[in-house]
């Protein structure tokens, strides 16, 4: 059963990462362990894909799985590039949280996929979006850390550069995801944009990060307001990602992740 494999994969990730956290000094071994944990989730996703005979991107649980995979990947890349240890551990912890949520809320795995979703656009649209979400989630962690430092009166300007970098990468993916979705919709239904609740909130999220980027360019030495904008933009992203499923108007949305998929 798929479920036993999930426990195995999540167990490997959890144990390798916990082990990695205890040996931060032995960098090579620690990095190896981190990568092993990531690989374990990747293998499970691949296995799920084959056994479902469709890309596992339909239900909320499946997207959480991708999230649990991409977050540590991005955490690791960020660590590699800027040597922020805490970023690595934050992202590992968050990934474990998502795996844990999937453990307590096992979703229905089934093969059905409605014809509208059977499109070559499906995988790029969703993967690009999940990548964007993972980058932007990482940027919001930076924002929270920045706000904490600011509260303590010891904000380091370097943290803003990190937030900027993550937002730029995330925003580029977010824009591509939005545009891929629009092109797909045009191909599938004849209209780019129908203001479906999910689309509306995706647009609001996009505007939120747009404000952050412009504000940073305009006032690069004002940190506090920018950090608050970044934190707020992530709240919008969360509403877009799963909050929208609980809005009554989203009932007939093509983007509602069906619980009974």
């Amino acid at each position, binding site marked *: 059963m798929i479920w036993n494999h999930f426990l195995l994969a999540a167990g490997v990730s959890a144990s390798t990462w916990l082990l990695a956290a205890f040996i931060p000094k032995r960098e090579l071994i620690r990095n190896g362990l981190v990568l092993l944990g990531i690989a374990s989730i990747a293998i499970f996703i691949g296995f799920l894909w084959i056994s479902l005979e469709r890309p596992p991107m339909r239900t909320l649980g499946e997207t959480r799985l991708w999230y649990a995979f991409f977050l540590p990947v991005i955490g690791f890349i960020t660590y590699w590039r800027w040597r922020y240890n805490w970023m690595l551990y934050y992202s590992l912890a968050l990934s474990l949280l998502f795996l844990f949520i999937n453990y307590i809320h096992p979703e229905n795995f089934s093969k059905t996929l409605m014809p509208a979703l059977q499109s070559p656009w499906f995988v790029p649209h969703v993967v690009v979006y999940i990548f964007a979400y993972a980058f932007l989630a990482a940027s919001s962690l930076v924002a929270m850390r920045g706000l904490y430092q600011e509260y303590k009166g010891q904000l380091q*300007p370097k943290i803003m550069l990190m937030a900027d970098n993550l937002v730029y990468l995330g925003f580029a993916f977010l824009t591509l995801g939005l545009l891929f979705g629009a092109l797909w919709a045009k191909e599938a239904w*004849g209209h780019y944009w129908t203001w479906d609740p999910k689309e509306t909130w995706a647009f609001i999220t996009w505007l939120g990060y747009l404000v952050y980027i412009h504000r940073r360019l305009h006032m690069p030495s004002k940190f506090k307001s920018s950090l608050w904008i970044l934190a707020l933009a992530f709240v919008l992203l969360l509403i877009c990602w799963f909050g929208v499923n609980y809005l009554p108007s989203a009932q007939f949305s093509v983007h509602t992740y069906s619980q009974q998929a």
Partner: protein
Amino acid sequence: MTKNTKTLWQSPWGYSESFLLAFGLLLIGFALEFTVGSASFGSLVFPQNLILGSVYILLIAMVYVLIRKKAIFKFLSGIPASIGAIAALSFLVVIMGVTSQTPMENRELVSRLGLNRLTSSIPFLIINFYLLFVLGMVVIQKLFPLKLKNWGFICSHLGLWITVFAAGLGSGDLQRLRMDLNENQIEGRAYDDKGNYMDLPLAIKLNDFKIEEFHPKLAVIDNTTGSLYEASKPSLIMIEDGLKCKLHDWEIIVDEFFVTSGRAGDRYYFLVDLGAAPAAKVRVITPAKDTISGWISCGSFNRPHESLKIDERFSVLMTVPEPKKFSSEVSIYTPDGQKQEQTLEVNKPFTVNGWKIYQLSYDEKMGIYSTKSIVEVVKDPWQIFVYIGVFMMMIGSVYMFWRGNKVKNEETLTGVSN
């Protein structure tokens, strides 16, 4: 930091003026919506939209020529003005995101302000025009003089401008019509969402409608309410031959399964016939190790549905199968006497004479026995311009990804936190 002591509307303008301007325009928009109403505004169709669009572009160019040396141009092409306009648009879209956008008959405050149909309301229109104006100023400011290093900026900003402009102006020329195709009949007419029929410059004959379905699923329902019982996940399991699974507290074993079948006497047999429905013989083992056995079927338009009662409260049943793939084999005739054989499928539209034909639906009551196919025909003459804008934005995004944020890094590092 020194406190900004400049009085309002004193040059140079900043955030306060920007927000007052954008939200002032919103206020005017709502006032107009409340008093005049947007019902008198029809969608612009060709050639009015082309004329209006040209006038608008000319206006932007004229304004630029007139004010490019003045302080106001610096403000309008600057970041605070952009942020003000984005904020005002966000405000409207957030309202759209939390309220349901459905037509209302009664003239309450919500509908008088256009809050239930924001995309066609005056404030939405005004703020879009304002946003396009500010964005236009921003683009012009980067275009003259043209520098090679600005290509990424111009791609993303001009791309956005073209997309919003073309999609907005072109919406009146967009035609979306439906056609009901019946097997072996030629159809040359399509109807709009109000049911008005019109002749098309093409005719379609449905030769064959094909549909494939997923297997039906097992589910447990509450006998008293008739609703799906979801005590644990998964609450629906797809039926396969020989399936053994645990559904909530019960073990369920599928002994026999027919994709199409008919009932004869006390059991179902494999059968190929009009309306033959899926059926399965299942064994349900209760927590007390009692076994209940029987046939279930989801039925069809001409066969009854059958469920198996587990106890007083619950029954196990088979859901109606979901479509996996549906397609129409059609012949398309055009006025020039040509005939084309095509297969229309969801996500695979076909273009003929400027019309795109989409597979939309079928007679869902009949399921796999449907001989009717519903297609949508769409004409969107402005599509090419929207695509140009979209591709420019994509290039802009790739540029952004590749470059990251390298500007103003130094300023950030030397700057002081406020």
